[in-house]
């Protein structure tokens, strides 16, 4: 989908390349003027509004719905319940590939979690549909809800996360523990958290015969078409998804969900466009969350503070009917050197909606526990926690011994510590106060995130007027794909970014893959880079075959593409513009294609991670036990940086998510009913501006020759990791209270003698 207007870019200095420049966002003007269109901003002629009625029990069945009352309400057009729901071509109780979870689409009267759709009301206006849904007044036969470790059903999972193994062992754990001078063993809890993207999940569905167009926020634009197609029994190419802007995703907009499918079904049934937008409260159920964990860490520590054994076990919660287990224990596989590492995960079935990937799935909750445990080990040994981390620095990948493709973590520690002013930190807790008498504490955490790559394709067209059209069905959920991907394409094409028209976010374009796993810039970027290089190669071929061109015969020598001209590699004074080459060839354009491709042998040989170090200062009121972050400094090394301005923003956002994890967010279930008691943005606490006083992100230089030809790692998720532990450790340093249940609450500190 093209951007309607070209946005002005700030003046920038070229260093012979477009990548690496801190351009402002290409979609900036659209976003600051309100002209960027999100799914629910679409209002096709004749559109109806759909509002789901959702369950208020966590387990049982619906025994009655007052359909007559809802239908009698003026403006209500239809009420869909299990009794009249048209058939679907796919059984929603069966999995549909890796990201196609079992979902609820009114297949029966069973209730499996709170906020599950139990009916859909469609009306001429939003007000009528909302009132109609309220009038349904569902009655239930309820069974006791299973909400925690005490009453959930434990089981041994076949896989964790997205297809990962539930158990990984390196070395001999028992031998490692036997060799230890000290063993530190503690348990940690992380709560259910909800993505709470600012934009509620929405869809506008329009059918034309057996073709359907879906305006919806979507992190996997092309892949999702096949999923919707399966539900409606049509070919994937009959589904068009338009997702030019996502109002945040964080993992919650990659997986098909029931309410959106119901809205599409309603549009087909009623032969009119239908819009559905979940309410904030309705997002606490059918659209995923980060599942709660109960983690155990056992660390063996020997001479010089070296780890001899590292054992990390997680009980990860999922729903009663589907498996997505937060792979928290895996966080201990990659960070610190230990001759023996064992990670294990057990499942726990609760009456909740199915969890899913949420920004740094596994890494965030696992890092939270690991970084506190590491701090506890340092404390037990009387070592500075940064020194202890350096003593256990992994020079090669723990367990496998693979070399790192690049690892500037030492530089991150050093630079972060310097900027934060770590030196001189008292070892003992409760030694620092500020001018107002608040307890001050400093903590550190290591950040790490892997570098997954996903299949992606792209097309680049060089046009007769010297501009280019570049296309890929990637997704910008705020990370800056509109800008960073265009920079990569412009670089490959040898053009200024303002000469490049970029289309993104619609499924008819070449498949841009998934915006997730912090791998989108690398994956779609590689496809764009290769498409650009392919287009330039085709242009070079035209020129080198043409005796009238100064590039005639340059075929074997090669050319360099720069600022809209091709130059002979061996003699750059011989050059010709793209416009001239295409004009003389009588060609309107040349089209290049590319896909994500990297050296698979290198991917097996080298261990590839982004790294970082986060330093936190907290202040705790000694009378009230209230903890607030006063300073965060994060230093990160993530390979080549495409746009430092946008990357810094990713780090700030990630660190704020870490702050939120450490001190603020948690969904609280009522044990009696299974209902989430704080399913709104007032009581489910996410950071506001006043919670974030001072943030610094340091972009530590790192070159990586192996991760991919562009040298790019990912930046979207890493900053959540490390930050959580750094803050919890700073709270300990301020107060002497070691809190092992997230978020750290006032009552935990008061219970530990603060306040």
């Amino acid at each position, binding site marked *: 989908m093209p951007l309607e207007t070209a946005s002005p870019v*700030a003046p920038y200095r070229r260093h012979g390349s477009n990548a690496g420049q801190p351009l*402002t*966002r290409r979609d*900036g*003007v*659209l*976003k*600051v*003027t*309100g*002209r*960027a*269109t*999100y799914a*629910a*901003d679409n*209002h096709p002629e004749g559109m109806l509004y759909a509002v789901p009625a959702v369950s208020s029990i966590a387990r049982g069945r619906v025994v009655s719905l007052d359909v007559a009352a809802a239908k009698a309400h003026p403006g209500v057009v239809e009420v869909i319940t299990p009794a009249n729901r048209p058939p679907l071509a796919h059984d929603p109780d069966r999995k549909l590939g890796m990201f196609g979870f079992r979902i609820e689409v009114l297949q029966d009267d069973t209730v499996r979690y709170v906020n599950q759709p139990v009916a859909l009301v469609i009306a001429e*206006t*939003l*007000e*009528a549909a909302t*009132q109609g849904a309220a009038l349904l007044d569902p009655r239930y036969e309820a069974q006791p809800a299973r909400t925690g470790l005490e009453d959930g059903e434990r089981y041994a999972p076949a896989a964790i996360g997205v297809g990962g193994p539930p158990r990984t062992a390196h070395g001999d754990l028992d031998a490692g523990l036997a060799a230890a001078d000290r063993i530190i063993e503690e348990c940690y809890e992380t709560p259910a958290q909800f993505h*709470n*993207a*600012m*934009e509620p999940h929405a869809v506008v569905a329009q059918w034309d015969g057996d073709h359907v167009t879906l305006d919806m926020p979507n992190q996997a634009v092309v892949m999702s078409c096949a999923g919707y197609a399966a539900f409606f029994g049509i070919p994937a190419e009959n589904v068009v998804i338009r997702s030019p*802007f*996502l*109002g*945040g*995703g*964080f993992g919650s907009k990659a997986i098909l969900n029931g309410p959106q499918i119901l809205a599409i079904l309603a549009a087909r049934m009623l032969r009119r466009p239908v819009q559905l*937008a979940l309410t*904030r409260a309705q997002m606490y159920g059918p659209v995923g969350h980060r599942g709660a964990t109960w983690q155990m860490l056992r660390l063996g520590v020997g001479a010089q503070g070296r780890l001899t054994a590292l054992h990390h076990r997680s009980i990860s919660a999922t729903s009663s009917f589907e498996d997505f287990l937060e792979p928290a224990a895996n966080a201990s596989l990659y960070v610190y050197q230990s001759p023996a590492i064992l990670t294990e995960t057990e499942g726990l079935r609760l009456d909740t909606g199915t969890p899913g990937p949420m920004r740094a799935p596994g890494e965030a909750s696992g890092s939270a526990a690991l970084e506190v445990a590491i701090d506890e080990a340092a404390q037990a040994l009387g070592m500075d926690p940064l020194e202890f981390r350096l003593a256990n620095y992994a020079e090669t990948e723990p367990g496998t011994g693979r070399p790192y493709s690049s690892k500037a973590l030492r530089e991150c520690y050093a630079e972060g510590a310097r900027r934060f002013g770590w030196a001189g930190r008292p070892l003992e807790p409760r030694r620092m106060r500020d001018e107002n008498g608040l307890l001050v504490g400093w903590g550190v955490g290591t950040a790490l995130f892997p570098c997954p790559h996903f299949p992606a394709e792209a097309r680049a067209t060089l046009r007769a007027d010297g501009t280019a059209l570049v296309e890929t069905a990637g997704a910008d*959920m*705020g*990370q*800056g794909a509109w800008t960073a991907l265009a920079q990569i394409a412009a670089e490959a094409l040898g053009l200024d970014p303002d000469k490049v028209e970029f289309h993104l976010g619609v499924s008819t374009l070449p498949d841009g893959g998934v915006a997730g796993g912090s791998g989108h810039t690398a994956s779609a970027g590689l496809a764009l880079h290769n498409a650009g290089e392919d287009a330039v190669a085709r242009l070079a071929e035209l020129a080198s075959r043409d005796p009238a061109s100064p590039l005639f015969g340059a075929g074997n020598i090669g050319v360099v593409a720069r600022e809209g001209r091709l130059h002979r590699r061996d003699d750059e004074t011989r050059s010709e513009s793209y416009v001239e080459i295409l004009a003389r060839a009588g060609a309107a354009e040349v089209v290049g294609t590319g896909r994500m491709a990297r050296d698979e042998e290198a991917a097996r040989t080298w261990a590839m991670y982004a790294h970082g170090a986060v330093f936190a200062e907290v202040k705790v009121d000694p009378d009230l036990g209230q903890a607030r972050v006063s300073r965060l400094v994060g230093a990160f090394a993530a390979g080549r940086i495409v746009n430092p*301005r*946008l990357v*810094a*923003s990713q780090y*700030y*956002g*990630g*660190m*704020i*998510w870490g702050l939120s994890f450490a001190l603020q967010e948690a969904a609280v279930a009522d044990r009696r009913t299974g209902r989430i008691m704080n399913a*709104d*943005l*007032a009581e489910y606490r*996410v*950071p*506001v*501006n*006043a*919670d*974030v*006083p001072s*943030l610094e992100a340091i972009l530590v230089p790192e070159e990586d020759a192996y991760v991919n030809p562009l040298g790019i790692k990912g930046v979207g998720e890493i900053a959540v990791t490390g930050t959580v532990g750094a803050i919890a450790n700073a709270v300990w340093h301020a107060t002497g209270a070691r809190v092992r249940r997230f978020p750290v609450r006032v009552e935990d500190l008061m219970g530990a003698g603060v306040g």
Partner: protein
Amino acid sequence: MSLSMSLTINGQPRSVAIDDPRTTLLDLLRERLGLTGAKKGCDRGQCGACTVLVDGRRINSCLALALSLDGAQVTTIEGLADGERLHPVQAAFIAHDGFQCGFCTPGQIVSAVGLIAEGHAGADPERVRELMSGNICRCGAYKGITEAVLEAQQVLADTRREDAA
């Protein structure tokens, strides 16, 4: 049933027929008048994405019944730029990367315009952070937002001084 009222929206007087008395100002703007810049993030006055100015004051338009505002002056995000020339707050949000996904941005910007007009924040970043805390940004662009508000406030003050001189 249709009730008529008049509103001045972004400087344009409009006579508006309200087909349903339950309609909020936000739903009037978004669903009936085609002004979709203000966003619905919570519909409960908790997130600020729907912030508009009513008679110069910033309000959560999701909490205001449209019919209660007969005769009011409403300014939305669509009414801030002068043609293609951005309002200083809009320009500062771009320069300081005061947004990522952009969904809360119309509310943040309108809120910032209202805050600057209120004149309470001064040059103190802590005051700005506190007084901008009715607008949640889940992407966490707060640092850029605070910088943008402070800069735009200065630009507007300088412009006023120049105009007065």
